[in-house]
């Protein structure tokens, strides 16, 4: 059985991925419109606060999910959910920096065994290092009994 305290001590709150990117307005509009969004700030580039929807921000968190040296837990990580916390609008066409770290590791035990939950937090900054948003990705791994 994997020792979660050991995992926490080794991996929590240590940045394991970083990249720069810019969002494209056309993609923001397409994703927002397909989601049923009609507010101008999400579908009209002429709006003074044109920005990405929370759901679009979640797509930024995809990429490397875990640190390269994170041990196998015996099962395939599944996407258990996502959360977004917004501090300021995330706009198209401006330089952004994305940084990821493991924010939380915990387990739940049931009749079918132990499930391990790993929360990867992706932080989004603008070029002035203003913190724009946090995106939490919840990975769920069903631990194999002999792992």
């Amino acid at each position: 059985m994997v020792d979660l305290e050991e995992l926490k001590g080794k991996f929590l709150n240590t940045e394991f991925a970083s990249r720069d990117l810019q969002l494209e307005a056309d993609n923001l509009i397409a994703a927002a419109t397909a989601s049923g969004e009609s507010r101008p700030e999400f579908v009209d580039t002429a709006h003074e606060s044109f920005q990405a929807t929370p759901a679009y921000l979640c797509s930024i968190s995809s990429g490397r999910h875990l640190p390269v040296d994170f041990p196998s837990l015996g099962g395939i990580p599944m996407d258990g959910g996502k959360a977004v916390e917004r501090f300021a609008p995330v706009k198209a066409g401006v330089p952004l920096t994305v940084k990821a770290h493991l924010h939380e590791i915990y387990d739940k035990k049931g009749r079918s065994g132990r499930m391990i939950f790993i929360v990867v937090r992706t932080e989004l900054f603008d070029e002035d290092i203003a913190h724009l948003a946090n995106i939490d990705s919840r990975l769920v791994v069903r631990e194999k009994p002999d792992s």
Partner: protein
Amino acid sequence: MSITTIHDVEFGAELPVFEPDTSLANVGVFARAVGWGGPRFKSHEGARKEGFPGALVPGIMGMGFLTSAIHQWAPVGQVEHVDTVFRAPMLADTPAIISAVVTDIDEDDGIVELDMTVKNTKDETRVFGTARVKLPLS
């Protein structure tokens, strides 16, 4: 009723039901826009070859449906935080029903808490979650 200030919100109120477009074509538009181009989002046949019962609606598109429902209910509200759990896959070309209920109101800070679900027509929950929405005080 359209919500314009925190004082318009009633505890326990249900948001108007929102039925999003889950057609395969629309799912494809979303998936391409967010850079997820796998077969599972493009065609039912491609998804079945990957072991799914049909083409999938991306989980984050479910989040998009939920926030769109909030924005329709409260056109000036700002979703500060939204947390979604992907309980089971949503299938393209299958109707989805969005519902939400007000679970807490902070009239001093203009904050509303919502519980939200995405269900299919069999009343099975596909996605559920919570949201914290900021509304004007006056």
